[in-house]
């Protein structure tokens, strides 16, 4: 046994996140383009919508899932060229950092609408 389970979870979660992505993207597009069909899109209107936690939850979930799905897929591509286990671990760690930073940055932008102030002041 060399690395039992190291492939199963990324493979399974890539498929689970793909399914979640499909649902979230459709929900997001419906909220953005069809829920208030015909109304003029204004900054204040969007800001008012983003004060509702339920709408924000869809956007936060979409942000987390899309970042995970993209970076996990990118990791698979990189691993076609990176064979050494130590380098693979380093790559995985770096991608986690990139992912967390992206989610924090995205979350910070949304939080200003939800909470009246940015959570991380980035």
């Amino acid at each position, binding site marked *: 046994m060399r690395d039992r389970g190291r492939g199963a979870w990324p493979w399974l979660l890539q498929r689970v996140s793909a399914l979640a992505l499909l649902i979230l993207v459709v929900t997001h597009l419906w909220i953005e383009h069809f829920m208030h069909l015909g109304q003029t899109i204004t900054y204040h209107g969007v800001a008012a919508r983003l004060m509702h936690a339920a709408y924000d939850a869809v956007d936060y979930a979409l942000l987390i899932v899309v970042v995970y799905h993209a970076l996990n897929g990118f990791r698979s591509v990189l691993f*076609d060229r990176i064979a050494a286990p130590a380098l693979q671990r380093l790559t995985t760690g770096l991608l986690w950092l990139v992912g967390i930073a992206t989610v924090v940055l995205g979350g910070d932008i949304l939080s200003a609408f939800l909470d009246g102030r940015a959570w991380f002041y980035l």
Partner: protein
Amino acid sequence: MDDTVQLDIQRFNPETGDEPYWQTFDVPVSPGDPVLAALMRVREEQDGSLAFRASCRSGICGSDGMVINGWPRLACKTQVADARDAHGMIRIQPLFNLACLKDLVVDQTPFWDKFRAVFPWLMPDTYEPEPEKERRMTMEPDDFQLLSKASDCIFCQICFAACPIVGLDQEFLGPQALIKAYRFEADPRDEGTPTRAPVLDDPEGVWRCRTIFNCTEACPKGIPITRGIQVLKRAMVQEELRR
């Protein structure tokens, strides 16, 4: 003989130590001749030193796998008329992803090592009481359908040569070992999953397959290899969740 075909063959002689080179032979052919017949004619009539493997000439033994016009095929199942280009030429190389020993003969050792690594035999339940009279391990027809194509493998190494991931990563088990593992994993009489799982559920096992489908496309027996590997991936996830 009605016609002539040009065989452009990649030659290599380890005794001279020279780099591989291309040699062209003009070979008379008859309608219906496979590439293997033309190769045999070269060896019998023009150059007895040309090395290639062949045995049954019927697509059963799997010996004459080689790269014909850039794609791994069985020479006995490839018609000269289909393979020749507009200039009447056919280019022949040894199989990819295996070291060339001489001309079209490759070193099969890595292929067989990977095949053995997946425990390619039926492992019955050892706790099942031994029957008193006769042990008949019969299968239901529906169960047999699941593995019947996978058991058609003739060990020709064509899927192994067609897989770009094998070319990229020599540690990868490769499509043939995985489809043989599937053949036994899909067998309801087999209880070998705990033994095979450490080999299959490994970054160099089923997870290294990128579903490129070259193996499925190249397989001369029409085995849906990629599908079998995907089934193995799902089985390994279930194993992982059970652990």
